[in-house]
């Protein structure tokens, strides 16, 4: 559970985060989406009590930042932007150091559990200098979980990973989601946010929108339906635009692309109209705009 109230952070002249107000319930996977320099890392640092806000307040797992900082750090796990390992020590030794600093009782047990979980058990005695980027990243996720925190912050968990390693990390995130933890993910990767997150905040210094991935797409663009016709012309498009449920329609080759408020309800009417106008309807389908378009539009307008 995370709540923030007008959370603001200024560095000298730069305002990195301004009046951020959020409420993230227990067990939610929350996507924090924004371009470079949006203030994502700064937000995570405030919420993990690494830096203090200029103004505003926040609680994490019921502890107020700036007041119960040690309790916050005990109850959260953090995957930092860069993994940061003691490269001439073994993977196991690295994790044992952190387990001890996180006050883990059964150090060997927890370290072993997560090394196995992430498929790094065989390599546990190798120094981390010999690890690939993806392995270091997975090890860093293990570090964030050693003390079984209720809330996990993942700052760009798959940045700089190849597609296969990214997939592994994503699957892993879905697994830890099953354990009921609250997960706060910073990312640029929209596909990823859509696949993993219950809700997505688009953020650029200020909160721009906050919604489920599906609603987000609908909210910005409405929904688009493509009618594939054997033959189509502009006259047909004009007819369709007349309908009150259709906000926009375009002719692309033999296809008509229409923006429709509620396609489930209105498509049959439109198809009837097309048929009565003599069109041969081959296929009807929804045009799924990528979330990327939504995001780029939001950020451009901000």
């Amino acid at each position, binding site marked *: 559970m995370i709540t923030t109230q007008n959370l603001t952070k200024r*560095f000298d002249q730069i305002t990195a985060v301004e009046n951020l107000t959020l409420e993230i319930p227990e067990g939610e996977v929350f996507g924090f989406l924004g371009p470079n320099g949006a203030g994502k890392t700064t937000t995570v*640092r405030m919420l*993990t009590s*690494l*830096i*203090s806000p200029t103004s505003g307040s926040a609680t994490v797992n019921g502890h107020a930042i700036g007041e119960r900082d*040690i309790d916050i*750090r*005990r109850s*959260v796990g*953090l995957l*930092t932007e*860069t*993994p*940061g*390992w*003691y*490269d*001439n*020590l073994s993977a196991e*030794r690295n994790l044992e*150091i*952190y387990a*001890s*600093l*996180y*006050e883990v009782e059964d150090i060997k047990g927890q370290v072993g559990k997560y090394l196995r979980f992430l498929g790094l058990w065989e390599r546990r005695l190798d120094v981390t200098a010999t690890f690939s980027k993806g392995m270091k990243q997975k090890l*860093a996720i293990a*570090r964030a979980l050693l003390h079984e925190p209720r809330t996990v912050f993942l700052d760009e968990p798959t940045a700089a990973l190849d597609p296969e390693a990214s997939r592994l990390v994503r699957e892993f995130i879905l697994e830890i989601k099953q354990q009921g933890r609250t997960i706060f993910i910073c990312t640029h990767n929209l596909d990823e946010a859509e696949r993993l997150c219950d809700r997505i905040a688009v953020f650029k210094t200020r909160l721009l929108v906050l919604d489920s991935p599906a609603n987000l797409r609908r909210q910005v663009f409405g929904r688009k339906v493509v009618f594939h016709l054997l033959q189509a012309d502009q006259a047909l498009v004009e007819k369709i635009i007349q309908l009150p449920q259709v906000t926009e329609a375009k002719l692309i080759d033999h296809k008509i692309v229409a923006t429709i408020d509620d396609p489930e309800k209105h498509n049959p009417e439109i198809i009837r109209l097309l048929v009565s106008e003599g069109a041969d309807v081959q296929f009807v389908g929804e045009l799924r705009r990528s979330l990327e378009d939504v995001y780029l539009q939001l950020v451009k307008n901000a």
Partner: protein
Amino acid sequence: MKKIQTIIRKEWSEVFKNRMVLFTVAFLPLLLTAIPLGIIYATSSSAEFAGASSEIPGEINAFCPSDFSGGDCFQVFIVSQFMIMFMIIPLAIPASISSYSIVGEKVNRSLEPLLATPITTTELLIGKSLAAIIPALAATWIGFTIFILGTWIIIANPEIIGYFLDGRWLIAIFVIGPLMALSAVSFSIIISSRVNDPRVAEQVSMIIILPVLAAFFGQMAGIITLNITFMLASVIVLALVDAVLVFFSIRLFQRETIITRWK
């Protein structure tokens, strides 16, 4: 307490893998113990020094109790010179270890995950400081013990041994040594916060040994005499210097400062 131990053990398992640090920690004390022992051995076995009090310059004779022979006095003088050099150990070792241990964290980018754990910055600072001070004092004291034992074996003159074990050197080894180690650690923490290459941090931190070199040449030139007053004055000055350096290193060693200002 347990976290401090974790930090100390971590520093040692990491930093002693570094050849530069290992060199400073192992060879420097070896060298600074072996050289004065070698000189004592050479001068005590050569007859020329035995009664040659007329050839010994006046400053050196003035340096010893009047009942010392010229040869004894020469030995005492040379060894005292090297004993000053010996005080480089409690400065150089902490400077070297803490440069690598702090700038090393910067290079690894491990400060942020480290500071995200429930450790306090005080615990971290104490852990890192002790990790640098303990080996320094161990090397100083072991080196000093070896030196005393070696002198005992070579010259077997209780008067000269007594001279080395008098109050001045006990103050130097057991009071000035630890104070120096603390100043070296604090100084290199301050340097390390500004520097991104551990070798640069180490080299710059080594400025801290300059006062020892000044004392070395000062005594050689007869400008200063390492009497008990000089020793006690050094203790007071060092304690003040420590207070200032520790104050600034603690100010720099705040979580937010480390995350946002250490570049």
